[in-house]
């Protein structure tokens, strides 16, 4: 890697939610610290791949868009992946799934979701923000990470810098619209945890009827609305919660726990979504219909290995 390439983006308008992310924080959950990191890890990795970056280089997760405006302070090659947020570079439309050139002074605007919810913007070598507890990811609730180290989301006037250099931009080996985290409405779930305590009728409904993604959704969890699930287990003692856990509170409507979930919790769970299903759910807008489909642990692992192998 040659040194000395420096660039930055200045935040001209902050949209509803944009934050610096990487793979997330690991080895710290026993401290009560959440995982964090890119919710759609699949798109995040491909965004970095497009630039030839390390796959976990810090990028920007842009949720909804909503008018986020960034001004390039230097000429650079950047990459966009994930949701189509009707982005524009000055007056040119910008689609996800490719790298692109910006010149100093040009402005990038993210408007409204046309497909998916979260876009990932990668920069040469990744954003150079300080690591906190091993990660650059911002987790606002915990006041950790991000551009100031204190979990803040993007604010007007912020300067997002990089000091790296890309090893060269590449073309995506598949159609962006067919990206696995943006297409399909099946969410693969590895059964486990307290699934044996749910009534037979509830399990039949859970896996045979459609679920609607609720607007009560954030990086902690996404509520699904549909048939009421009944669990015979009364109260539970809080225990560790894995990524993608499908927990069912007493109202019978599941909440799928994502990257910024609490570390322990006490609602019964059906099991956990696979990593790819988590990425897919994180791209779903409220109102979207999804279906849960049970999968074996080994099968889930095979799919995951294939996803990672494609990035090599």
């Amino acid at each position, binding site marked *: 890697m040659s040194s000395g390439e420096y660039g930055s983006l200045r935040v001209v308008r902050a949209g509803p939610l944009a934050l610096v992310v990487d793979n997330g924080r*690991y080895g710290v959950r026993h401290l009560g610290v959440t995982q964090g990191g890119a919710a759609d890890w699949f798109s995040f990795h491909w965004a970095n791949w497009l630039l030839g970056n390390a796959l976990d280089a810090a990028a920007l997760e842009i949720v909804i868009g909503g008018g986020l405006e960034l001004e390039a302070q230097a000429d650079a090659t950047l990459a966009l992946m994930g949701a189509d947020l009707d982005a524009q570079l000055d007056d040119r439309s910008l689609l996800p799934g490719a790298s692109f050139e910006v010149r100093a002074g040009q402005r990038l605007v993210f408007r409204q979701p046309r497909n998916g919810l979260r876009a990932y913007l990668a920069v040469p070598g990744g954003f150079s923000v300080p690591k906190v507890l091993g990660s650059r990811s911002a987790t606002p609730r915990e006041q950790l990470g991000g551009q100031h180290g204190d979990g803040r989301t993007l604010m007007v006037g912020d300067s997002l810098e990089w000091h790296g250099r890309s090893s060269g931009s590449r073309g995506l080996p598949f159609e962006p619209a067919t990206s696995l985290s943006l297409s399909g409405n099946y969410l693969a779930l590895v059964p486990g945890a307290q699934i044996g305590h749910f009534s037979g009728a509830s399990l039949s409904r859970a896996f045979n009827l459609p679920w609607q993604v609720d607007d009560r959704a954030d990086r902690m969890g996404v509520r699904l609305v549909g048939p009421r699930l009944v669990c015979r287990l009364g109260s539970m003692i809080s225990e560790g919660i894995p990524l993608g856990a499908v927990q069912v509170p007493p109202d019978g409507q599941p909440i799928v726990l994502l990257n910024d979930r609490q*570390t322990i919790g006490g609602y019964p769970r059906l099991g956990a979504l696979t990593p790819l299903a988590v990425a897919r759910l994180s791209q779903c807008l409220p109102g979207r219909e999804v279906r849960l489909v049970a999968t074996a642990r080994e099968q889930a692992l095979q799919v995951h290995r294939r996803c990672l192998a494609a990035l090599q």
Partner: protein
Amino acid sequence: MDALMVRLFDTIDETNMGWIVAADKQLRQVFAEDLIDLVPSYTTLMVHYDALRLSHAEALQRIEQVLESLQPTDTRQGRRHEVPVWYDPSVGPELTRVAQQAGIAEEDVVKRHCSRDYYVFALGFAPGYGFMGLVHEALATPRLKTPRRRVAAGSVGIAERQTAIYPLLSPGGWNILGRTTFPLFEYALRGEPLLRPGDRVRFQPISREEFVAQGGDTTPLEAAP
């Protein structure tokens, strides 16, 4: 897909902690580099292992290996913390509620809250946040019906028979009795939590003057919604 739950007990008990602490230490040793995260709680330990390096069967085998020869750690020899708390209705608005439902005076709530050592059962909810217990039965008070949107850092609260300190400004539904300068968040940031499962904690009442001298923030906490 890559997490296993080690379930040691069915109920919350202070005698669990020696076993949980011992299992935590040994699981870390046998999983070593293949461990991504280990999350102990009241009765369980969640092992998040690297499924790209270790098969499910191998992971199970390592867990069995630990459980076969597990002996509890003597937590009486563990760390004990004295936590100074300024108990006052301005920063602890539920002092009154807890006193009322217990049928005792506010100062007796403070006395009882400070009358015993609490075990740290689990960390969670926020960086450095420790779930502690068990508080005197008379003080057991259900969570607020509607959680506060903002509970100040250092707030000391109880929910049912548990007690805890909020490490940082966050939403929360516990009954707040007072405030401390005990630096939970600062230590969690360094990766060395002040409170660890199995530690014991004793609260000590201090005056407003002492609290201020320790750098405490006396901004009143908003009343419950």
